């Protein structure tokens, strides 16, 4: 491979896969918020449930 092609291959991998790794790491460190507004609790049952019509 030419040096230019290698450079752009590495750049593509670094930027795109780097973005994936960074977002995965970010998500693992902060999976979710701890300060949700009040409310928003779900009444969820397992298995096949009828469709929710309202909250």
């Amino acid at each position, binding site marked *: *491979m*030419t040096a*230019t*092609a*290698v*450079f*752009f*291959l590495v*750049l*593509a*991998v670094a*930027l*795109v*896969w780097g*973005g*994936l790794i*960074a*977002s*995965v790491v*970010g*998500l693992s460190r*902060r*999976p*979710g*918020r701890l300060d*949700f*507004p*009040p*409310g*928003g*609790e*779900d*009444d*969820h*049952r*397992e*298995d*096949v*449930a*009828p*469709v*929710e*019509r*309202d*909250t």
Partner: protein
Amino acid sequence: MSTSAGEHVAGAQPREQWTGQVGFILAAIGSAVGLGNIWRFPGVAYENGGGAFLIPYLVALVTAGIPILFLDYAIGHRFRGSAPTAFRRLGGGRMKWLESLGWFQVMICFVIALYYTVVIAWAASYFVFSFDLRWGDDTAGFLVGDYLQVSDPGLSFTFVPAVLIPLVLIWVAVIVVLAFGVARGVQRINVIFLPLLVVAFAALVIRSLFLDGAADGLNALFTPDFAALADPNVWIAAYSQIFFSLSIAFGIMITYASYRRRRSNLTTPGLVVAFANSSFEILAGIGVFATLGFFAFQQGVDVAELEGLTGVGLSFITFPAIVSQMPGGPIFGILFFGSLAMAGFTSLLSVLQVVSAGFQEKFGLSPRQAAIRVGLVAMVLSVLLFSTTTGLIALDTVDNWANNIGIVASAVLAGVFAFWVLRKGSELRSHLNAVSTFRVGGIWTVLAGVLAPIVLGYMLVSRIVTLIVDGYEGYPSWYLALMGWGTVLVFVLAAFVLTAIRWRRSPDGFRPWPALPEGGSRADAGASTEGGRS
């Protein structure tokens, strides 16, 4: 079930949900990673500047792909419903008819599913053919003649058993999975197939890197042509690739986000999904072009002289020819067509979940009822239209109009209505920021509400003009009117008809959670006291 204040509402029913964040992310990646990642991205990148294409591609990802993905998440999660339900609630009291945009998206998904299933059936067939390299030396002749038995454009009812049988089997499989519901069906299959896909495709890529001529193929793909960046069409190609690859703007991500718990992180998982999708495209680019480099080396020609570098030609003509010449070819073929089938199947599930969810909510059906009724109707239409001797031409035509007209129009309309007409940009941004760990700023409103509709609007208008002036692939005008423009007409008419039908149970009287901060626009405009609200 609880209201925005958190109290339980008697008589209200729970919504299906993913089992958690990882289940949702895997399902969303499974939806985004499809046939286009494998057979479209490498060729598009190669033809639009090679290594230099990385620049418009990443710009498109950041300025349109991710913002529209977040818009879909926000609409689906805040208004907690399929595309018709979510758009009806988004529209509120005075614009409940915006439900029709949701049905427009449902119809796009319905039609796409009809032919997407066929391509998966082809991939499954070629998976089997790989064992004995059944396509022989003339792969193009085998595909068009022996396998698909392609005739002239028209409407044929001469069925091709070699297509029909795997097609029916794929439909039965997808109906069974959908009938099991979101968590036990769609999520479970994605949790199994996605890791399998990554392992199989990674093995294929690693093998391809050790082939003679692989370096030449990678040179061809990654050597930059910076002059291409001055060509507007290269930028349009980048926006198109990102847009069609991410499963955005036609109901999928709205539907998937609606199955998340209310207290769910939206934006950071969205970044994971978006970068995972692009990561797979880069992986596919490496694997496909290393393999093409080998093919060129075997032929004694330059990679630039090869034909059939994208789509059906790449997958079912060029790749079989390569497999035939490769040491250990059958295993390579099995990995390639197995990957194609798995990537397609997980995307197909998401497309049909949009349709299933829409009908579940409008007509009060269970997931099982919707899967069987919608699935059987779709299967019959799919068989009638695409398992005949005119199936390939019909697929090519319907796909072009459904994507380039249907999906792009859907994206433009969603952006225009959400941001310009209803002025819900601040509400949707507040929603994202209230539940997510990655906060979006005002720039998101500009990108999703201004830039994306303008770029996509330009793409839409230019494509319409081109199709009217130049036609498509030299097919007869009457055929394009029927199968191309007719498809779009079906989207529009069905959207209005389905909107006009009475709901089994009204989705109105809905109050989004979380409530807007003081001074925000009324998110519950038009909310009534029906539908179980106390």
